[in-house]
């Protein structure tokens, strides 16, 4: 397969490049897990103060939820939209557009390289946090198996969604607003602030309808064992459905975006 050969070559170059930024990558990863750890500490404290139980979540459940959430958000993270605006406005996208390979592939590889590079340290850090906060996992072996497709779907969905937002840079010189909006929405609806199960009914319903929970919350709940066998197919279907919708949206917006691209600067 030709694409496989391209990926092998890109990954090789990517790892070689990343080797020079190893420390930087690790620091970036550690900074990124500060926020969920703060939420973890806060909820654990609140739960303990309330007698160890909030809406069915015990102290250990909160700890497990936020450890899993941290793990998932690291695995599904996508940051292309930050760089893309710069690439478009500086005309740096041109070089990529002149090659017979969709620019998306370069950022898939960049994404993989970063995650694979930081994964070992991330796992160690999360095990330590898990132990020190006394996390209780309700995970069955099938949860672990189900987690794999779920986290892959989530990563693909978040990545594609990020590209949809990035593509706005073709029209707006500053698409940061859209990005911020997305961050805020996913903060609430993806379950980063609190497990969706603790939210008021209408907010819960909204979260299940919107795409954000399927980017982070879904695999998190599966990994901590907070999902029943009956719920699983629905969750995976929701993830797949949103991925399909997002892929269509991306291909639509991208085609128009490239037409609008003015290849400024160079």
């Amino acid at each position, binding site marked *: 397969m*030709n694409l496989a050969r*391209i990926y092998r*070559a890109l990954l090789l170059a990517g790892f070689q490049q990343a080797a020079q930024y190893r420390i930087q990558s690790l620091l970036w990863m550690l900074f990124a897990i500060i926020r969920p750890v703060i939420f973890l500490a806060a909820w654990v404290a609140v739960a303990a103060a309330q007698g160890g139980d909030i809406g069915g979540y015990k102290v250990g459940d909160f700890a497990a939820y936020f450890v899993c959430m941290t793990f998932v958000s690291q695995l599904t993270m996508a940051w292309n939209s930050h760089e893309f605006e710069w690439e478009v406005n500086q005309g740096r996208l041109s070089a990529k557009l002149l090659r017979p390979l969709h620019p998306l592939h370069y950022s898939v590889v960049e994404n993989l390289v970063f995650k694979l590079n930081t994964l070992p340290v991330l796992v160690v850090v999360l095990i330590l946090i898990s132990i020190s906060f006394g996390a209780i996992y309700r995970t069955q072996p099938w949860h672990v198996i189900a987690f794999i497709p779920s986290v892959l779907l989530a990563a693909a969905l978040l990545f594609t969604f990020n590209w949809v937002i990035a593509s706005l840079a073709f029209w707006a010189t500053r698409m940061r607003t859209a990005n911020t909006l997305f961050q805020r929405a996913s903060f609430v609806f993806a379950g980063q602030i609190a497990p969706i199960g603790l939210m008021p009914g209408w907010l819960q319903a909204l979260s299940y309808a919107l795409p954000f929970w399927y980017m982070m919350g879904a695999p998190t709940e599966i990994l901590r064992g907070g999902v029943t066998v009956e719920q699983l197919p629905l969750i995976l279907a929701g993830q797949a459905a949103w991925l399909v919708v997002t892929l269509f949206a991306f291909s639509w917006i991208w085609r128009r975006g490239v037409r609008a691209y003015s290849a400024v600067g160079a």
Partner: protein
Amino acid sequence: MRKTQTPASGSATLTSPMSDRVVEVSGLRKIYKVHERQSGLGATVRSLVKRTFKEVQAVAGIDFAIERGEVVGFLGPNGAGKTTTLKMLSGLLYPTSGTATVLGYTPWDRRDEYLRRMTLLMGNRTQLVWDIPAADSFLVLKEIFRIDDKSYQRRFDDLVELLELQPLIHKPVRQLSLGERMKVEFAAGLLHAPEVVFLDEPTLGLDVSMQVRIRGFVRELNKRTGATVLLTSHYMDDIVALCKRVIVIHHGKLLYDGGLADLAERMAPYKLVAATLRDGAADADLSKYGEIVSRDAGRVTLRVPRAQAADQTARIVGELGPDLADLTLEDPAIEEVIDRVFSGDHPFGTPEREPVAAR
């Protein structure tokens, strides 16, 4: 395909190689919409409510065709539309109207098969990964452009030899100087042996010796691979060294398309007569033969209408004979010709008028 056939050559036209047009451009136009905003707080606030756009016509409908293997110079001042045209031909930009085909493809469809057969090299552009050696970036390009191992090794060796890349290829790109990087960029853009090469300011910012080497390289590339080259440059030396044919555009319109040699004739309807006078006659008045451009000791340069150049030269020889140490008749420097056209003081297209008198 041209359908016109004369009876005599009727059967021959079917089999004989048709004119092999690699690039065909017709009525190509590009209008940019530019968001207009005055400076100042008030204007900024207003622009939030109502955005005003100004239309800027970068390319105003141009037509030309390029045959396989030609090296064509694309001339024009800044903002003439050269780069915009190259970007359209390489598929980066969609035109506002008009058509273009390159190698039979519509460039802005950006088909993979097309991208694999052409390249756009820009002097101020970088396509290599800065943190790793170019040789490693090349391996990525090899896969992206689907170059087989044998061809890759051959081209790699060729490019390394021609561009003298051996000492550069294994250093991280960011450690290279501008000129060195440019050479490596060139190699990167040519690994897939493109049949059409668009070069935008390939020597920009390079020192003279590096410019000369890049020129030599482009010439060699054309000779070895038969690649069709369309080249823009600010440096007339690039054009003179490489291109027999030039296309001149100005304000997005095509001003001239033809031989470089004829350009001077069409655009500068005068010649320069330089007479060197012997010591005794250094003060002789030559103004009756033409407009005196410069006078330096015994050497006088005259601008003479092209049509009269031969006669006037003969007159000078006849009348000043013994006082002449030397006499030359030449075309004005190409830079000067181009400069006159672009500065707008030349009535282009009417060489029969007498610009000497008009000045």
